[in-house]
């Protein structure tokens, strides 16, 4: 990881010095454990702050939306797929971005690490090969990375950047090793009543901060439906009807576009398992339309187009 950090910095400096780009969008070290932060480097000196670790849980494609300048962006598999999505949806032009492709090592779920130390305050976490060194005020322990990766990183299908102008480091294993069929859509084996109950449980702690929406590169609407007030589609309370309306409608808007990057789960301040919905979207779109989002700039996302022979299993039950 250290080597890749150095490589990102030197490429970023070169691009900035040669004025190929106006800024380099990457990650820099965070001030809390296990959360690096999105960072725009505008000068070669600032490029020295860029890092690449297993704590890069934000999807940087989100930060490209609406920019007018030329940006080089650090992109692992899912981020590159969302860049493709933004190009497909005409939110970004290919010429405007310079993609620094990477192979994702699989990012760490900080909640899983914290869960291993229930009563203790973690002060810092360092990477050490395939292990993490977890430090507190009065302890230091090791955790295996493979035990604490984010769920979406286990079932990842495209760890290498799918488009790039330069690839940094080696291309690596494409999948995360987990079986998406096994874990996706935990609803499917449940009865209708149980599904609803599971859904209610999943979102009951939601405080409607909209971090899931605001961290997501799919959610770039000028005015989100929950912010519409003439007419107002969705109430503002944290009562079930309003909570459910928000989450169900948002999920529909993401179908056929979501790359399972996990940014929403990483952002949620109350630990909601957002992927219980998004994994079902991924599976349905894959099975019904034989489509996986963010792989082909020339294709059209299935729900953006109507075809007379579109599958409609819902209409026949």
């Amino acid at each position: 990881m250290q080597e890749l950090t150095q490589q990102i910095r030197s490429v970023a400096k070169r691009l900035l010095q040669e004025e190929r780009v106006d800024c380099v969008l990457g990650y820099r070290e965070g001030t809390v454990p296990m959360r690096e932060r999105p960072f725009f480097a505008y000068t070669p000196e600032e490029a020295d702050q860029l890092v690449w670790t297993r704590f890069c849980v934000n999807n940087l494609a989100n930060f490209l939306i609406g920019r007018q300048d030329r940006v080089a962006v650090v992109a692992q598999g899912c981020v590159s797929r969302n860049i493709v999505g933004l190009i497909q949806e005409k939110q970004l032009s290919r010429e405007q971005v310079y993609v620094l492709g990477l192979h994702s090592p699989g990012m760490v779920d900080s909640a899983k690490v914290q869960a291993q130390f229930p009563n203790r305050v973690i002060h810092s976490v360092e990477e050490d090969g395939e292990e993490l060194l977890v430090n507190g005020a009065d302890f230091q322990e090791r955790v295996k990375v493979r035990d604490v990766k984010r769920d979406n990183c286990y079932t990842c299908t495209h760890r290498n950047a799918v488009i790039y102008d330069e690839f940094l480091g080696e291309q690596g294993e494409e999948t995360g090793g987990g079986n998406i069929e096994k874990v996706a859509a935990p609803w499917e084996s449940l009865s209708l009543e149980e599904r609803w109950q599971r859904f209610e449980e999943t979102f009951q702690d939601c405080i409607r901060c909209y971090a899931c929406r605001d961290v997501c590169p799919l959610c770039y609407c000028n005015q989100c439906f929950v912010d519409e007030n003439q007419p107002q589609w969705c109430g503002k309370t944290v009562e079930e009807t309003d909570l459910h309306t928000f989450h169900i409608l948002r999920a529909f808007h993401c179908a056929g576009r979501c790359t399972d990057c996990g940014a929403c789960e990483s952002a949620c301040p109350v630990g909601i398992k957002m992927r219980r919905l998004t994994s079902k979207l991924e599976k349905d779109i894959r099975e019904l339309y034989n489509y996986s989002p963010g792989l082909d700039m020339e294709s059209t996302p299935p729900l953006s187009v109507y075809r007379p022979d579109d599958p409609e299993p819902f209409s026949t039950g």
Partner: protein
Amino acid sequence: MQDKILDKSEVDALLERLGSEYDVYAPLRDEEGSVQWAAVDRSSDLVWDFSNTGVSPKRFVFPQTECMMRFKNRSDDAEGMIMKQEQGLQRHQALLNIRPCDAKALKVLDSVYCRDETSNDVYWRDKREKTLYVGLACKSPCPTCFCTSVRCGPHYEEGLDILLVDLGERLLVRPLTEKGADLASNLSDAPDEATQQAAQQKKEAEAAIRSQVGLENIDARGIMELYEAPMWDLEHESCLNCGVCTYVCPTCHCFDIQDETQGEHGRRVRNWDTCMSWLFTYHTSGHNPRGTKKDRFRQRFMHKFKYMPYKFDVIGCVGCGRCTQRCPVNIDVTEVVGKMNQQDPN
């Protein structure tokens, strides 16, 4: 007032006593292992070694969704369209093991919600007056805590009725108000060594707070100078304008009022709102005085660290560090305030 002492084995008796008068809530560990506020009726559920809850307990006084009034949604009815005030809190409530910072936060908000006769929020006041605050002093502050920089601290007493200090097998019980003294009246006086042990713990907890911020230059500088400082141009850049910081915060207090109708039923309801949202300040005319992300980002810090000290002589922050911990892009309040406080804020 005289410090008292309580053996932890006797906490059940205390809970029983509290329960006869109050609905009792405390930070409890849930099935997934995270600590959250919930109703409690037995001491074995209590947690003594938590840092703090992810979301602040302000909702007990300021619920995220609160019905204020109801009305019959019929204009052709003599009783129709007339607002009827909701009843207040039915039963008094006790917040057990509330952290001193969270209790201080409610005190800070009194300066907004019930400062004088011109600002007398009946919904806030009702619950404030019907709540008992039994604090638990902080033993091991988080790296993100900076309470001692903002007129607060791990053993801070203002805003509490009782402060508990965990001495292992025993609790030091320090009554701070009449209400607190009543509750502790049947306990034995604390021996001097227990009071000394608590004082020592206070010193250690204060020393363990690693984050510090200075506010002296912010205080000295004019509002417009800070407002126009170049620092905001870069600081806001990665902000998502989501509401995490404002909703986990114990002192953020903005709301939105909505009238909702369904058939013949109508109600007026207020919900937390966030200054991070463009909609928060959007005018009917289409003008938005905080139209950009930078405007909204700046507002949150200026409000807490400049406007509130200027208007009410209180800092709108108690240093709990939740915003830094939970921010999806790790915007660190101490960094931003540190920059505001620099000689040359750019």
